[in-house]
């Protein structure tokens, strides 16, 4: 069964900490994405990557960075965690278009910053 695996389901961090969220996919997908999901705001795109060592800013990149050193792994970094970064973080991967398949999402990491 194809998978996108996020390293933690729940995480609690302190304000100011540097936080790493890891995502690994086993489908040989070129594209990988990070979203956050908040009640009333839906899914919002943070960063994405089309290839190793490549990254593109999404709609809300402020306060975040990413790393993609290997094709299967895409990490999201919160440089200095703040309480407004408390959220559900979702990683996804896909083949580039044209394709009849959509994104495969991980189960999410619920991050609480205190």
């Amino acid at each position, binding site marked *: 069964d194809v998978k996108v695996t996020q390293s933690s389901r729940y995480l609690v961090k302190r304000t100011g900490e540097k936080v790493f969220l890891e995502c690994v996919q086993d489908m040989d997908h070129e594209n990988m994405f990070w979203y956050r999901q908040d009640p009333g705001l*839906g899914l919002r*795109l943070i960063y*994405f990557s089309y290839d190793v060592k490549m990254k593109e800013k999404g709609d809300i990149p402020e306060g975040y960075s990413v790393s993609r050193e290997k094709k299967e792994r895409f990490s999201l970094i919160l440089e200095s965690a703040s309480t407004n970064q408390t959220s559900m973080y979702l990683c996804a991967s896909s083949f*580039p278009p044209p394709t009849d398949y959509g*994104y495969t*999402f991980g*189960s999410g990491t619920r991050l609480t910053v205190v």
Partner: protein
Amino acid sequence: SQKIEQNSEALNIQEGKTATLTCNYTNYSPAYLQWYRQDPGRGPVFLLLIRENEKEKRKERLKVTFDTTLKQSLFHITASQPADSATYLCALVRLQAGTALIFGKGTTLSVSS
């Protein structure tokens, strides 16, 4: 700027009926549109993709239509079951360069027995 609207936040129907969910978009001409299902506390799961040159697509009890003139997609679940209760999201490629998706806020469907 581009906008995706899923008209209803919540939809309640009885088992066996057809559920119809709406997705409207503005300032945009997407090449394709996708629908996802999301259960509480889980990531979205891809259901269907429909291209701009396809009027309708079916998969088992699911049917999606795509009207590029009205800038609207309809998502139908026929013979609905309580197990169909979930949040359904529509998604389009972002207007900016690239192929990343933007998502509507979703419609939460509740099917009662």
